[in-house]
Each structure stands twice: as C-alpha cells, then as structure tokens.
C-alpha cells in the first residue's frame, strides 16, 4: 500500500510541478526534430571517461522517413536549476533535452506528459469521483429501497447507458460556440464522463447494498433505531468500498481515452493544452510500434498511476468495517 501511495504522490507532484520539471512548454515545436527518439543521458563517453550527465544530439538522416543518428562528436552537458527549470541541456539550440523523444510536430513528449497529467488526470479523477458519488448514491438508494424506487432508478440508469454518447456529444457540439475555453471543455468533459460512468457504479453498488441490507448486522442496527439514511450511508455503503475502489481504477483510464474520442468531434483540447488522450490518439499509427515506441509513454504513465491507485486503495476497505468481525483469514492458498 505504501508503494501505491508513493506512486500517486509522485504523479501528483509531477503534474503540479510541471512548469518547473518540464524542460519546455508543451506546445514548443522543434523544427527538424519530428518524431525524434529520446536523448538518453549518459555518464560515460565512448572512451570510457566519466562525466557529469550529458546528452548527444540527433542528426537528421532522412527527413521523409524521420530517421536520426546520434552525433557522438559533441557532448552537451545537462544544466540543473536554471531559467526556472529543473534540468535543461547546455545548448538548447543544437541539442534540446528530449527525455521521451518528440512527436510528429517536434514537441517534447516528456514535457507534454507532465503538463498533460494536469489535464487528463485532473478530468479523469474529478469525473471518476463524480461518477462514484452519483453512482453510489443512486445505487445505494435503489438497493436499500427496493421495489418501485429500485426499478425506476435502474431503468433511468439503463436509459443513460444506452443513449449513444457520440450522438449526444455531436448535438451538444453544435449548440455550443465554435471556440471553447479550456476551462469550459474541462467542466463539460468532467460532467459528461461523470454521468456516463455512474451507471456501472450504480448497478454494482445496488447489488452490494441489496445483499447487505438483509444481513444480521443491518437488522441489528435498525432495531437499535438507526434511521434509513443513516443505515444506508454509515452501515451499508461502506461494504461497497472495495468495489468503488476497483471501479475508480477502471474509470480513470477509460476517461482519459474517452477524452481523445470526443476531441474528434471538436469537444477536446488543442494547443497549447496537452492531454494524454490526444497524445495517444496522435500516436495511433502504423509506425508507432516498430519505429516510434516513445509515443506510447502516456499509456505507460497511465499504467503507473492506475497501478499506484490500485495498490493504495487495496487495503483500505479492510481497515474499517463497522460492525463486522475483522478478517481472520488473509488468504486461501
């Protein structure tokens, strides 16, 4: 669990400190360095001598095929804590520091990763929390009440689920002004995703609450005078904590990707805002696996974040469970 928390904290820190940690602005384009591979920092040169960290520059061999060759004739030392950045190359013009290579516009992928974390993780986490909140409330009330309320709520969630999101988005796009400010897009996407994610959460929570409802401890709490809402929120819903934690780790990557799909119809971000979703969509080409694998780094970053969250949230449900006996069995082999 500690590892998980550490990963999440590092990711959050990286996102927040992006302007300092990232060598460049996310929309800075390096002409002549399109789809360039990462400039790997070295410590030893070809003769075996040790130096402070340095990089070699890329020499363009074929422009149309984006082929580069490392120019080992000159070393460019890395400089630290200058011009408001954590690390830069000593000669920006000749050898920019490209820790994760560049994309097809010549933009530094590493910087875009950091800045993109703000956008994508921001939306995904807020939307996921929204979906969890909305879904848990609806599912909890449905599972608790049963009967007509349950049926009505579940049919409403069915309707939300089956309405094709793309059509709604397209219609929405047409009534909105052509140019949307990033904050508007952020708010819009968060709300849309929260609504779209809620039904999955609602069904799962409903199933859990329904069974918990009939267990002895719930009956006991009721007998002791617990009111409906109190019973639901304090006693029953916590049983769904585990499910909610897993749902969160699944919704987040789904939302990052959905953001890229919506940008196809114009409900997305454009320069200078970077987002992991659009980075991945731009990366979806035939050449990426064989020739430009560094373009897949947002997927790796997403994996790290999701892994961290998963590890961090994993033990939490076990920690507090009101009124239920502590686990006697940790595992069954």
């Amino acid at each position, binding site marked *: 669990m500690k590892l998980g928390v550490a990963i999440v904290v590092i990711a959050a820190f990286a996102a927040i400190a992006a302007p300092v940690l990232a060598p460049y602005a996310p929309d800075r384009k390096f002409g002549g360095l399109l789809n360039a591979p990462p400039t790997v920092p070295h410590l030893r040169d070809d003769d075996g001598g040790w130096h402070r960290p340095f990089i070699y520059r890329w020499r363009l061999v074929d422009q149309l095929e984006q082929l580069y060759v490392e120019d080992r004739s000159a070393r460019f030392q890395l400089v630290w804590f200058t011009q408001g950045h954590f690390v830069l190359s000593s000669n920006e013009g000749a050898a920019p520091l490209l820790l994760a290579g560049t994309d097809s516009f010549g933009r530094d992928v590493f910087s875009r990763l950091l800045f993109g974390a703000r956008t994508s993780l921001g939306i995904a986490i807020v939307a996921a929390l929204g979906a969890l909140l909305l879904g848990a409330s609806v599912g909890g009330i449905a599972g608790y009440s049963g009967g007509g309320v349950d049926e009505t709520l579940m049919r409403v969630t069915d309707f939300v689920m089956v309405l*094709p999101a793309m059509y709604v988005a397209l*219609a929405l796009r047409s009534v909105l002004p052509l140019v949307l400010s990033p904050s508007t897009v952020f708010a819009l996407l968060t709300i849309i995703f929260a609504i779209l994610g809620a039904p999955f959460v609602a*069904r799962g929570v409903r199933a859990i609450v329904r069974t918990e409802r009939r267990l002895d401890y719930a009956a006991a709490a009721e007998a002791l005078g617990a009111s409906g809402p109190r019973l639901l929120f304090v006693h029953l819903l916590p049983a769904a904590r585990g499910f909610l934690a897993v749902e969160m780790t699944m919704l987040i990557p789904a939302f990052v990707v959905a953001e890229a799909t919506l940008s196809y119809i114009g409900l997305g971000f454009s320069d200078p805002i970077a987002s992991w*979703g659009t980075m991945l969509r731009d990366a979806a080409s035939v050449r*990426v696996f064989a020739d430009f694998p560094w373009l897949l780094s947002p997927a790796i970053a997403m*994996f790290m974040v999701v*892994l961290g969250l998963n590890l961090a949230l994993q033990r939490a449900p076990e920690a507090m469970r009101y009124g239920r006996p502590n686990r006697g069995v940790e595992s*069954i082999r």
Partner: protein
Amino acid sequence: MSGLTRYIARRVAFALLLVIIVSSAALVLARLAPGDFAASSVGLEARPETIEQTRARLGLNKSIGAQYRDWLASAIRLDFGRSLQYDRPVTELIPERAANTAILSVTALLLATVVGVPLGTIAGSRGRGILPDAIRAVSLVLLSMPPLLTSLFLVFVAARTGWFPIAGMRSAAPVDGGATLDLLHHLVVPSLAIGLPLAAMLERLQAQAVSETIGQPFIVAAIARGVPRSRVLWRDAFKASLRSVAAVYGLVIGTLLSGSFAVEIITAWPGLGSLMLDALRARDVFLVAGCAGTGAVFLGIGTLASDLALAALDPRAREA
C-alpha cells in the same frame, strides 16, 4: 402468473419502451447535428437547388417534429425507414450486422470470462505473492491501453507474423478447412482486442470481491471444519463473490456494441458498431435511430440476464 414471469414481462415491456425512447432520441439528436445527408453526400459540385431537391426527395426538408411523427407512425408498423446512404430498409441492414457484432461480442465475452474470472479469483485469494501481483500488473496494463491502440497492436502483430488474417470476417475465396474454421481464424484478432481489456476488468472486479469474501465468517468456519481449501475457494467463496461481476455483466453486454466500434473499424469487422459510426458521420438519420434502438435491445437483454443471475446467485437478495 408466477412472480418471476410477471417480473420478466414487466422488464420486457420496459425494454420495448426504452427502445422507442432511445431510437426517438437518436433520431432527434442526429437531426440537430449540423449538416445533413443531402449536402454531404451530393458534394460540392451541386447547386443549392440540387441539394434542396435531394432533401425533398429524401424527406429531409420536413421539420424535426413532422419527421419524427412520420417516423413513429411507420415504426409502429415495424417500418423503420430506409437508410439514406445505402437505400435499403433499415430493417434489412441491421440484422446481419447485429449478428456479426453478436458473434464477436459473445466470443470476446466468453474469452474474457473464462480468462478473467478465474484469474481474479486466484489473485484475490492469495493477497501477496508473485502470481497475484503479476496478474494484477497485466490487468492494469490492459486497462491503461486505449482500445484503439490495443487493436492496432494486435493487427500489427498479426500482420508481422502472418498467423492470423488482419481484417474482415471471412476470406473472399473459399478456404480449406471450411467456412467455420475460416470464421474462427478471422475472429481471433478482433475478439482478443475486445476480450483482453474486458478480461482485465472482470479480473479486477473478481479479485476485489474474492478478497472481501474470504474474510467472512462462513469461509472461516468452513476452513475450520476441515473442508479442503481449494473447495472452499472455488465452490463457496467463488459463488458468493460473483455478485459484482454479475451486476456489471449486463451493462457490459449492453455496451459491447457501442464500445466495439474502434475494434470493428481497425479490423474491418462488418458489425453494428461501424455501421453506427458511418451512419452518424453521414447523418443517415433513420439508420442512426435503428442502430440506437438495437443497442437498447442488447442492453435490455443484458440487464435482464444480469438481474436474473444476481437473484439466482444470492437467494438472500431475491425479490419477493
């Protein structure tokens, strides 16, 4: 009528209502979107009069209200209009494509269940260890990859190795081994593309549910009584933990249709997802409505199956 029959009848009735509502909503939404089929199909060579005449011929110059009323009137007679792009009745275009998507979805779902649920049970029952950690890592990788990239990767591998066809549902020319084998051969790449991320999702849900279940008194009691551990796991804990998976299974079935369009496009699988996307791009309003309605049917079946499974799994939660 028994309670169960009444329940099913109620759900079916509601599902039909949902189909109508969703189809109507899709029709209206497609009309609201800017542009229409006439302009985008006739192209830039046409004069405005040509576009207007095409519109009149196709019935696109009616107001949204009038068009909806006409559509509803014929829909009740089970005539869902003609596709503007393909000039065929919607009811002729959809079933074949829906069947293709169903074949793909069922295969992917089977794959995902057979792989994901047992792996999740193992991962959830062991807590720490190499195996559960590895399973978790693989699941998270699959969940972090967008479906577009997963399918592209699989197609890329298939192209490089030549083991599997990379597109289409059947080969153009007859193949030895027969048509069924040919179909299975073509199914591999797309069903993996859909099934693997799905397996990851089911695995995660199942792992979570199992790790909660094994802490419960009845499990502890069974172990204390001397029941073999594997039997406790695979018979008792497994059954009790399925509720989370069962709950979302229905939604999974229902949304496989719309979620699969990325895969269908890359692997050229002639399914409902790509039909819907084409219809949307072309503003083929009647086909859009038809596809949305079919999606509602899928969802209705899925959620009903899911609710029935939930009731069967946990008698404590059954409706009176």
